[in-house]
């Protein structure tokens, strides 16, 4: 497989043309019922992945599974296009799903859930081999699960081991999760040295820090929740932001000053979209195109989930349109 972005980006640009356009999203929004919504979807490129979602008696669980399948197939397809450095860089984008899966493993094992229960909660995506996840889920405790992931040679295994040790020392699952989050960003920044991905990640880290500070405002903010690597918010700023001082947020002030958490998230999501778009514009021959495409795909699937839920529960189209068009 080629490892140059010329080929990868050409393929991604073709895949980008298959994203649902505004007209198709409008058609799903205008559907009079959930069944009609499914019919509209079955006329789109998503038809191949709909599977059980269109069967008699199928509900939101089947729709969610179908949309997840479509998203992760697409992400995996992009990942498989790449090799060498490009594969590492695109892998960083997919490892955020590994991060969720590792947290799911830890949460399930820490709360004593059975192997089947844990496996069912895993995301069908990311870069960790299914066999490694199965071995980890059946290992019985978090430390053994960390060993199972280490054996697979996954880049986040080190962070998982560190987290397991931190959890074993403090008895708090939160420490493991924070160690995983920190480990992910450390690794991602190390891979993305000097590329558009680095700029995108720095922006994402700043936005994440701003959202964390906004969400925890009024509570004692744990300094370990601060993620290093952003360009705008430093560790001391993070503590001040948590205390309610929004003057240190720079261009992230709209997130920090948003009247509600929902509005803060809408602003943050829009800022991330802009960052992904800028990455594609500024790095047309690099990873930026993949960053932007995966972001667009993720938002497309999120909007379809939202519209599908709205149609299933009979939410008025206007209300759904407002929620969807906040982007």
């Amino acid at each position: 497989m080629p490892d140059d972005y010329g080929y990868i980006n050409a393929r991604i640009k073709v895949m980008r043309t298959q994203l649902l356009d505004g007209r198709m999203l409008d058609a799903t929004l205008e559907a009079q019922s959930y069944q009609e919504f499914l019919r509209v979807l079955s006329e789109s490129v998503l038809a191949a992945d709909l599977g059980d979602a269109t069967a008699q008696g199928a509900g939101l669980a089947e729709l969610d599974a179908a949309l997840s399948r479509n998203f992760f197939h697409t992400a995996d397809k992009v990942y498989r296009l790449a090799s060498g450095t490009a594969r590492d860089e695109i892998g960083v984008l997919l490892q955020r799903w590994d991060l969720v899966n590792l947290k799911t493993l830890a949460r399930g094992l820490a709360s004593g859930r059975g192997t089947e229960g844990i496996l069912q909660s895993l995301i069908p995506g990311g870069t960790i081999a299914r066999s490694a996840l199965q071995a980890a889920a059946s290992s019985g405790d978090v430390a053994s699960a960390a060993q199972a992931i280490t054996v697979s040679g996954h880049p986040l295994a080190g962070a998982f081991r560190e987290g397991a040790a931190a959890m074993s020392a403090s008895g708090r699952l939160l420490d493991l999760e924070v160690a995983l989050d920190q480990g992910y960003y450390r690794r991602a920044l190390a891979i993305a040295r000097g590329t558009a991905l680095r700029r995108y990640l720095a922006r994402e880290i700043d936005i994440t820090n701003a959202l964390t500070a906004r969400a925890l405002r009024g509570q004692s903010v744990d300094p370990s929740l601060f993620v290093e690597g952003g360009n705008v918010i430093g560790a001391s700023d993070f503590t001040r932001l948590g205390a309610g001082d929004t003057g240190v947020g720079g261009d992230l002030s709209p997130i920090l000053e948003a009247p509600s958490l929902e509005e803060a998230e809408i602003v943050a999501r829009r800022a991330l979209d802009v960052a992904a778009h800028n990455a594609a514009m500024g790095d047309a021959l690099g990873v930026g195109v993949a960053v932007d495409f995966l972001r667009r795909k993720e938002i497309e699937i999120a909007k379809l989930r939202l519209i599908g839920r709205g149609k299933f529960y009979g939410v008025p189209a206007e209300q759904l349109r407002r929620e969807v068009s906040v982007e």
Partner: protein
Amino acid sequence: MAGQISPTRTALLASKAQLKLATNGAELLKRKRDALIGEFFALVRDALAAREELAGVSRGAYTSLFSAKSWDTPEAVESLSLAQPGTLSVNMQIESVYGVKVPRIELPESKGAVTFSPINVGTRTIQAATDFQGVMQALIKVAATETKLRRIGEEIKKTSRRVNALEQVVVPGIQDDIRFIRGVLDQREREESFRLKKIKAKLEREAEEAAAQSGAQGGSYAGTAAD
């Protein structure tokens, strides 16, 4: 019942005591029932308020979950639910309301602190988690109020059945017994009185006859003596 009781004065006294006891018991049970009904209606208001609160909190929580699952993926949201223990401990004590044992469930203290890393977790998911903590508290409140309501309702039903049994069966039964014993005793008294009258009449008749006889014998003796 009346057929099995021995119609004696002792039985009459015992039945009268039973009647008094049953009437007093019915009266006490009626008062208990009235008090329980008062308590029941006060609780109904609480239960309705708790239900309304649950409905309101649930609506908000499900709306948050609706958005959270859409934007943050259902898998990530469900993963977070694994971080919570499958069971929740509540403080439960048994208290007595007019002799009815009802549970008093105290809500678990909400620590408010997140048990998962908020990094990379959507604010809608955090909002949904917070909202569902509220749902859990409202649910426990509803469970506590409605269990109390059900227990008191059952006790009202039981007490009403007891009052009805006393008023409709036991008291009339004892009154029948008393009527029966009284009837038998009165009958016996009448019989006794009639018998005594008869005896008295017989004795008087015998006395008269004896007197008449002795009078007649006296006359013949006198005649004989005169002869």
